[in-house]
């Protein structure tokens, strides 16, 4: 079996199948168009049927005569069969004229895998480049820097190990900053694995900081709880006064839920720490002032770490963060290469077909 041909459908193959299907659908539309209807030929539109609302109601009604279309029954049957068949894509055979230059998909996977894995495996810390500091990072830093010793910080821990690769690096400098300020963290999570993830990160930051001379951090048990019931129960935490609320979320929805359900109740300023993908959705909340700060993605982590380094000392996970940034550099370059290659392949193939 030709692995390449069965692995994925090629573009022209799909286009051919689409054209065949369109022709079939057009034929079916012509067939089912009966005169006298207000609307006909709409795909998926079924004739309305009368639903009996009382037992025996339908018995008195005579079934309407079958519509006559003027087409041969055998022809109709063939059209129905054509439409009822599942489109065959993976195993479809290609005619010789449709042979084209294509990249074997596992090469794509290999390229990306190597681009991400090599800097991490060999602990490359260069080329690092310059992480951009987006609006919201400095504001988040200021909000945490204003905390006093013993202040309560409500933390919604809305990520688990699935997204910890990105968010642990983001959360670490902020957690260190809050612990350095002597804040008391009240951590809740709507995810069953959230509290365990939070405990590991907070204890990791405590361990690293306690190894540094002159640093004494609170070593009391970490208050992290799982709250069942979903976002609906979040308003319960709006009754508790706090100096600051921090949402560590992989998705924008968690931050939105906190802003809608909790923030209006206790009027506590909110800082969001999110994955880069959630940033564009949350930026309007930063502009409107509902969010006091927004830190997102590896860029955000690097920017916050830089600010923290300038004031309170060495932030945690610096080597790991550098490796991630190097990995991000290589992965984005690999993406660019893939996009260019994909377009070149498409251009070459189209040119050959026109010949």
């Amino acid at each position, binding site marked *: 079996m030709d692995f390449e041909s069965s692995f994925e459908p090629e573009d022209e193959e799909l286009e051919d199948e689409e054209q065949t299907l369109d022709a079939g659908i057009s034929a079916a539309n012509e067939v089912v168009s009966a005169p006298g209807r207000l609307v006909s030929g709409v795909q998926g539109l079924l004739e309305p049927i009368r639903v009996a609302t009382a037992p025996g109601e339908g018995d008195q009604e005579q079934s309407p005569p079958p519509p006559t279309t003027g087409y041969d029954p055998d022809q109709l049957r063939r059209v129905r069969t054509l439409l009822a068949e599942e489109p065959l894509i993976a195993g479809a055979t290609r005619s010789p004229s449709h042979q084209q230059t294509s990249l074997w998909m596992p090469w794509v996977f290999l390229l990306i895998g190597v681009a991400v894995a090599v800097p991490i495996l060999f602990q490359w810390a260069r080329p690092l480049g310059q992480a951009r500091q987006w609006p919201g990072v400095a504001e988040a830093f200021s909000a945490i820097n204003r905390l006093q010793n013993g202040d309560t910080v409500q933390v919604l821990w809305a990520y688990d190990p699935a997204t910890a690769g990105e968010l642990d690096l983001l959360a670490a400098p902020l957690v260190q900053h809050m612990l350095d300020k002597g804040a008391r963290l009240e951590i809740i999570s709507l995810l069953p694995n959230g509290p365990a993830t939070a405990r590991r990160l907070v204890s990791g930051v405590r361990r690293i900081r306690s190894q540094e001379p002159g640093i004494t951090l609170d070593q009391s048990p970490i208050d992290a709880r799982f709250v069942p019931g979903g976002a609906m129960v979040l308003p319960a935490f709006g009754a508790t006064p706090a100096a600051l609320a921090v949402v560590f979320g992989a998705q924008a929805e968690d931050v939105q839920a906190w802003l809608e359900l909790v923030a209006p109740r206790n009027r506590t300023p909110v800082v969001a720490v999110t994955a880069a993908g959630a940033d564009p*959705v949350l930026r309007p909340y930063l502009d409107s002032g509902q969010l006091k700060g927004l830190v997102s993605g590896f860029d955000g982590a690097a920017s916050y770490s830089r600010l923290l380094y300038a004031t309170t000392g060495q932030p945690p996970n610096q080597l790991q963060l550098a490796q991630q940034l190097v990995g991000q550099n290589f992965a984005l370059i690999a993406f660019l290469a893939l996009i260019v290659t994909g377009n070149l392949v498409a251009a070459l193939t189209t040119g050959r077909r026109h010949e």
Partner: protein
Amino acid sequence: MPSTRLSVTGFFISLLAIACFALLLLAQTNAGAKLQPATGVIYQWLMWLGGIALLLGIANVAWLHLRRIQSGRRDWELSLVLIAVLAAVVVAGLINPLGAQGPLVEWIFDYVLAPGQSALFALLVFFMAAAAYRYLRIGRQGGAWMLLGALIIILTQAPMLVPVLPASMVAATDWFIDAPVMAALRGVLLGSGIALLVVAIRMLIGKA
């Protein structure tokens, strides 16, 4: 024949739901502080209900898989693995006074759950790479615009490339994100908010 009349039980349940709704709505206003004890009880109930629903869900999954094993259906061995792991984690959590922070549960989290979840999520990059290779193409309908947007964002997001790029390009990208993208997102947020409100009102007045 189903009756359209509201039963006495149904009436009281509806009354309770309406009362809870009104109370929670009032709690979002300035009168919230005075209603705190009552709303606190309601939220406590919600958490209990959420916990019980979770347990019911687990019991349901366990029951379904036990039946698969009992009837020897296809891939019943996988159901057996699921039941064995479920039982091991539950027993490990119950017999240890530390509960979910017991050493065995912690070991399962560190060496099974966390790597498994991370590995599954990490596969996303391969799908994205395949999609970028196959679908970000100039020839496709609307593809040129998508390609342009993707290229601009990728170029200006790579920390290694940012110092090399002209400052005007970075500034143009910032404007692109701050003005058209932000406007579109705000429109989406407003539209979805209004739609949600309309749906909620329609549900409340029985039109949905």
